Each structure stands twice: as structure tokens, then as C-alpha cells.
């Protein structure tokens, strides 16, 4: 097993910097996720790690060793793509065995034993002779995972592996991926645009935007203490309210938004952006009280998403029971509001 260090990584396509000075260290055995909207540079970063792209600046190091000039076939990585990329002219067994043409199976087992072992691992025992086209999307994706793992790579790279699958299958499969990752204790870099997926499986997450890393941290840290407005808006449903802060005499500050205002626990002054998580807001009284107009509610099964208008600012509230459209009061404690840096 090995760590993966990205050191000042830069990749340019013509005038655009797809990857702009990315420095991140993925620890040995860590499940690390690059998350961001499409075009943020996360897939290019993954391709730089795999060796399909060469950096215009910076370096990728595996276990402290530079990979400059090392072609993909010598990097000892396993990769799984969104499109599965199974070789259509080979059976499932031949697909899984392909990497064993170039690397000996670990633990001195035979190729056939290794293939059977891997198919067992991904819950597809005895499927060796099937044609890839005869399998469902989820099965194909598991074959792709088995194929990537068969030679016992030291790094596993997953490029939006679930995006082509339906929601329920996606949830089941990501549990499976996580379980296998734990079992093999393999350093894993996962790329996804789905922030929910990123939060649910990762040890740590890097949120990327315009080729740069906005924040690196545990899912909890990224969700609760976003380091930037972009992270606050991208990770989870959120309300980001712009206002002007002035310190209060006791502790905390008051944030004025137009003619209205609310208190926050942090001390701040000047123009600020405040993140108000929808689940921290509720209807009722106490703490900060905002008089809003309820516009509409969406039923989610376990909760309601309620869209409110607060003096021209839209506020999203997540509650278990929906109020009728019309005037209402939204409340939250000052500690629930998070003043964003800068």
C-alpha cells in the first residue's frame, strides 16, 4: 500500500488551467474523494494520478517516489470508469484476468483462482464465462471493479463509477465499494460530482472548483464548517445570506440584511456571507426570529423542504411538518449560523 501526494499539480489545456496548483496528500489506505461540479478539474486530477495526462507543473508522488516519466502501465494503479469500459470482445473472466497477463497474481495463486476470488468479492461468483453485454449495469460495474483489483494494485482510482446507475443501485453499490476498500485497506481516490455520495463514503473530501481545491477535510468538517461560499453552496442544500455585521456588546455579532437582522455567535464586522443550514431552521419562536412568507413546500418522505421569502431573500427550511403558505416565523439559535471566511 502506498500514499499519494499531489504537489503543486498544474495541467493546462490551451489557455485554461484545468488543474491549478493542487496540493493534497492521500494517506496510505485512505478513502479520499475529489468532489466538485463538472469541469472543476477533478477527473483531470485523477488522470494525472493514473498517468493518462502529464502535468505541466508539479508532481505526483506514490509513497514519496516521483512518477514523472512513469507510463500508466507501470504505476500499479487500478482504475474504474463511469462507462465500465469492459472489453466487449472478452468474457467476464478474461476481463478480470487481463491485468494478470502483465502482473503475477498476489499471494502466489493461479490466475483462475485469482479471478474466482475477485468475482466472489464483488458478489458475482461463477460468472467467468458470461459476456459483459449480458450483464446489467450494476453487474458490469462490479466486474470492472474486480478487474481493477485483480492484480492487487497499490492505488485504486474510481472515476464517477456510479453515475450511470439508478439511485437505489448506486446507494447499494457504494456501500459495497466502501466495504471492499476497508477489507483490502487500499489507498483509494474517488471522483464524483455527487456531494451526497462524497460525504457518505469518504474518510476525507477535497472540494474542487475551477481547477483549485477549495477545502480538504472530513465530510463532517466540510459540511459543518465550509471554508468558502462555494463549498457552503455546493455541499448540501444551504442558505447563504449576504449581510453587514457589527459586533455586539456581550458576545457575537448582529448581521443586518436590508431592514431586518439576526444574531450570530461569532464575532465579525463588515460585509459577510452567512451559511444557514436548512435543517437548523424551524418554524416557531425563540432565538433569532425571521418573519417570512411561506411560498411552497416539497414533500421528501421523511421531511419537507419549505421555500420561504424573507424580505426578498429566499430561505430554504427543512422540517418534519409543513406550514400553510402565507406569513410565518422562522427561528434558529445564533450558534447555528456560520459566518463564512472572507
Amino acid at each position, binding site marked *: 500500500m502506498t500514499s499519494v501526494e499531489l504537489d503543486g499539480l498544474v495541467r493546462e489545456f490551451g489557455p485554461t488551467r484545468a488543474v491549478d496548483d493542487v496540493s493534497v496528500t492521500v494517506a496510505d489506505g485512505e478513502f479520499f474523494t475529489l468532489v466538485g461540479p463538472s469541469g472543476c478539474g477533478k477527473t483531470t486530477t485523477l488522470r494525472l494520478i493514473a498517468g493518462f495526462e502529464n502535468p505541466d507543473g508539479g508532481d505526483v508522488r506514490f509513497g514519496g517516489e516521483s512518477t514523472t516519466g512513469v507510463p500508466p502501465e507501470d504505476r500499479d494503479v487500478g482504475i474504474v470508469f463511469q462507462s465500465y469500459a469492459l472489453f466487449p470482445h472478452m468474457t467476464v473472466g478474461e476481463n478480470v484476468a487481463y491485468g494478470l497477463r502483465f502482473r*503475477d497474481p498476489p499471494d502466489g495463486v493461479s490466475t483462475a483462482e485469482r479471478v474466482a476470488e475477485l468475482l466472489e468479492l464483488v458478489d458475482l461468483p461463477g460468472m467467468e464465462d458470461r459476456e459483459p453485454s449480458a450483464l446489467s449495469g450494476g453487474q458490469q460495474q462490479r466486474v470492472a471493479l474486480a478487474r481493477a483489483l485483480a492484480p492487487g494494485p497499490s492505488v485504486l482510482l474510481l472515476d464517477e463509477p456510479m453515475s450511470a446507475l439508478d439511485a437505489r443501485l448506486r446507494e447499494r453499490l457504494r456501500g459495497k465499494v466502501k466495504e471492499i476498500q476497508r477489507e483490502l485497506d487500499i489507498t483509494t481516490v474517488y471522483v464524483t460530482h455527487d456531494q451526497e455520495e462524497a460525504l457518505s463514503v469518504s474518510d476525507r473530501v477535497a472540494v474542487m472548483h475551477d481547477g483549485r481545491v477549495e477545502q480538504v477535510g472530513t465530510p463532517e468538517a466540510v459540511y459543518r464548517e465550509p471554508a468558502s461560499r462555494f463549498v457552503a453552496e455546493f455541499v448540501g442544500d444551504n442558505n447563504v445570506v449576504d449581510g453587514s455585521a457589527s459586533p455586539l456588546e456581550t458576545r457575537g455579532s448582529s448581521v443586518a440584511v436590508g431592514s431586518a437582522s439576526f444574531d450570530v455567535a461569532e464575532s465579525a464586522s463588515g460585509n459577510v456571507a452567512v451559511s444557514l443550514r436548512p435543517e437548523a431552521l424551524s418554524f416557531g419562536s425563540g432565538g433569532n426570529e425571521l418573519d417570512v412568507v411561506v411560498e411552497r413546500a416539497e414533500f421528501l418522505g421523511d421531511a419537507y423542504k419549505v421555500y420561504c421569502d424573507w424580505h426578498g431573500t429566499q430561505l430554504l427550511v427543512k422540517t418534519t411538518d409543513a406550514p400553510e403558505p402565507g406569513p410565518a416565523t422562522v427561528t434558529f439559535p445564533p450558534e447555528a449560523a456560520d459566518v463564512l471566511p472572507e
Partner: protein
Amino acid sequence: MRGSRRTAASAWATLSRAADRFALPLAGAGTLAVLAAVFYYPVWTVFVEALGPENPVWAILTSEFYMGAAHGVFAHPLRVPGDVAAWLAEVHIVAGWTGLLPDLFVVHPGVRKGLFGFTAYQAALSTLASVALGLPGAYVLARFEFPGRRTLQSLTILPFVLPSIMVVVGFVATFGQFGTLNGVLSTLGLERVQFLYTLEVVVLAHAFYNAPLVTRMVATAWENVDASAVETARSLGASPLRAFRDVVAPQLVPALAASALLTFVFTFMSFPIVLALGGLQLATVEVWLYARIQQLDYATAAGLATLETVVSLALTYAYLRYEGSQSADGTANPLARHRLFDASGPREWLVRSGIGVYGVVVAAVFVAPLASMVLASVGGLEEPTLRWWRFLVDRQASGGRTQPATAVRYSLQFGVAALAVALPMGVVVGAFSARGGRGRKVVDAVLMAPIAVSGIVVGFGLLRSLVFGVEVGDYRVSLVGPVVVVMAHAVAGYPFVVRNVAPMLSAVDSRLVESARALGASRGRALWDVELPLVWPGVLAGAAFAFAISIGEFDSTVILAGDGVYTMPVALKRFLVDRTAGPSTGPAAAMGTVLLAVTAASFVVIDRVGGRYRP
């Protein structure tokens, strides 16, 4: 970096791994070496000679014979403005006819076209004729459904594999003194016509070759028109004609222009058709160049070759630029085809009777030459005979200068050998072209240049360099005829392999290759294990093309072939000229029929496995 886990790496495994790794770079280097040796170096020697001490290029540019009125620009540039003004003062342009073709006559004073002017003039006429003959075909193929449509559509690639010298035989058999046309005329009690050695028959033969190209390219563009775009225009109030003008036509014009440009390039460089159907009195640059080589006037030949290559490269570059700017995306929703044999109302009947007339013309132009040739090989309908076929056999037995079986044997040997060289070259270049990164366009152009340089020029360059001998250090290297012929054929054929393989390779998901590489395969190994098994139809079609090109290659072969080494097309030309067998095209027709059978077989392979050639 996985060395620690690789404990059982035997010497053999290391060796095969090294072979894996270097196979593709080596094949690439080999391809470049072959190109350099049998294309770039020979053509370069021609250029050097052309710009050498005798400076034939300048001699040609300042010669009225070669340049016509334009020679003044180079000979006495200061007089040009005065000359042009004097000329303009007296110019009268009168429209009229040259035989069957429209022509413009500048009444007074006359303007000499010169050799280059005439070559461009006949190429322009040929392009017009090809468009006129090909465009209705695109309409019929793209807009109508009828039994055999697919077959007709695939037949439009046939001209690419038909040897042009064989088409010449077909035209002689059709329009010659004793050809099918005159046979029909005399049966009707009409006078026989002399149609050979006229500009008309040269233009017609060029149309035979290039109209299918126009048809194919325009029909493809037409099929890519999105029906919903037309429907949107109609729903916004456009009449059918207006919708055609505003939506369909703008998508057809680029394809039409590209096909016309390509036709112009091909007919500008056309050789056997002009040589055999036109003769020296209708000589183009290419034919005159060949005549100079025959006269051992190598300096003038080099000058002509250089100027012609400059023109053809410039035109091909323009074509490639133009092609590159077109998006070639298909549509999932093409215009629905009308049923050809299902008409209601006078308008539809009118359209269909027009198509009927067109069908007759197409049959006359395309079917008659091939049918006449096969017919002529058995003596025609009136007195069927096998004597021409027997002549071929007897000739073989008598040990004459040009023996049929020897020609067939050489053709097949050269074809197989050229294929063996062209196929790996084409696959390597195709892989690079489909996946290459930066600098791809430049390399593409360098690798595809052979398609834009005439066979005569390449043959001439090879003759003057490798065949006559090249000084390498203290040694004089000289290659014998057959090796050079095979290499020239391979270089002529491999772009067709590229053109077949590259589009299919670029359609293969690049993630497949990346998966293979992440699993430990080298780039070459991934090509071999993953891509080639998926694109084998393209490889096979490319192979059939390369083989057919070699079998039919005439231009460079006729220069390089010695007395003892000749192929079917060369033998065909000798039989056509050699009238020891009487005033008949019989022997040539019999030989041509053999050639037709071989190339038709190649075509069937190309068609069955899905040839993707898009010029």
C-alpha cells in the same frame, strides 16, 4: 515501482515485455523510415534537380508553351499591365460549343492556355461534368427508397478500386472505332463517329471516376440533415422550397464544394485516362511529364513534377482545411425517404420520370464501358469467339515480350507484398491519428501527403534516386525494380488503410485503452489486445483497399517496371497499344476482364466487412 512484488520475472518475461513496449515505437519509426526512403527522399531529389543549375522551373514558368499567356508574368513582368490593358481593350467574349461541351471563346486577340492552363481547363470541365452527373445521384440515394439502394450506395466506392487503365479499355471498347456505340449506330444505319482522342471522351471518363465521389459525399451530407430542423422551418412558415434553401442547401454546399475540389485535384493529376484516351495532342502536365521522362529529358521532367506537385499539394491542403472545418456528426433523425415506385399526382410523376432518364444516362456511362469490355473480350455479340482469351494463353506459350500469366503473377505478388507493408503502416498511423495529442495535425499531413502527390512524380523520383542508385558514404545503394515497385505501392495504398482504420479506432471508447494500460499493458499491447479485435472490419477493408490499389496502380509502375517486371495494368497498356493481334481491343479487353474480376473481389471484401473509406 511494483518490482518488489514481481518475484517470478524470468528473462523471457522481461524480453517479451520489452518487445511489448517497443513494438509500437519501432513500427512507427519503421513507417517513417519507409516514407522517408520511398516518398520524401525521392520527391526531394526531384525538387533539388528542378531548382538546380539548369533551373528548369524558371524555364517552364517563362515558357509560353507551358504557361500560355501567363508566362508573361514571369518572363517580362513590367510589360504585363500594358499587355493586359491592350488585351482588355479588344476583348469580346462569345459563348459557344466545343463539340458537346460549352466553352467561352475570346474572339480577339486569342489567349493561349498553355500546358498548365489546358490541364486546369480540362480539370474544371471534368469537375463540372462530375458534379452534373453525380449530384442527381445524391438526390436519388438520399431522398428515395427502392430495392437495391444500399447496393448502389456501396457501389459508389467502386471507382476507388477500379484500375484507371482498365476503365480506359472499357471506354475504348465502348466509344472506339469498332466499339459498342458505333456498333449500335451502324446497326441503325447511321454513320460511325470518331469519339476517341477528343476532350469529350476524356471528360466523360473523368466523370465516370469522380461523379460517384460527388454522389457519395453529397448523399452522406444529405442523410445527415436533421429532419426536425426542416420540420421546424416548415412550422415557422417556410415553404418546402424555402426550407430546402434555408436549411438543407447550406448543409449540402460544403460537401459539394469539398467533392468538387477533390475531383479537381484528381483530374488535374489524372494520367492513364488522358494518356490513352487523349493522346499527346490533349496532353496534360502529367502526360507531358511522362513523355519527358520517356525522352530522358529529366531536367524538364523535374521542373514539371515540382510545379505540378506544388499545385496538387496546395489544392489538397485547401481540401483538408475545408474538410476539417466541417462537422461530420450524423443525425439520429434523418429525412424520411420517398418510395421511388409509389407516386401520386403529376408532380411526383414528373420527378420520377426525370429520375428514369437519369437512370438511363447512368447506365450508359457506368455500365456500358464495363459491359462493353467484357463483351469485347469474347468478340462481341455478333461473332462470339474465345480467340482473345486463347491469344492470352498462346502469347504466354510463345514467350513474347509481355506475357499475361507473368503479369498476373507479378500483380498478385506485388499486391500481397505491398499489403504486408501497407497494413502495419496504416494501422500504426491510424492509431496515432485517432488518438494523437499535440502536433497531430502536422504529423497527419506529413503522413498523408502521398495521397496528394501523383504516382508519376513519385515513380520519377524513385527512378532517379533508389533505382539509379544513391551514394551512402562510400557505397552506392541501388534497389532493384520489384522492391521499389512494392514500396511505391505500399506508400500509395497505406493512406487507405489509415482512412478505414482511424475512424473506427477513434470510435472505440478511449477508456478501454486506458483500462488496459492501467492494468499493465503497453500502448502497443493495448492496441493489439483491445483495439484491433474491435476494429477488425476496418482493418480488413483497409487491407482490401491496399491490395486493390496495388493491383490497379499504373502511374509509378509504368515508370519503374522494367522490360521483365510488369503488372497487369502495364500489360494492359501494352496490349492496348500493340496491334499485332489485329485492329481489335480484344486482347486488352480479355486482360482487363481478369483485372476487373480481381478488383471486384476486393470490392466485395470491402463492402461485406463495411469499408469506411471517406475521401
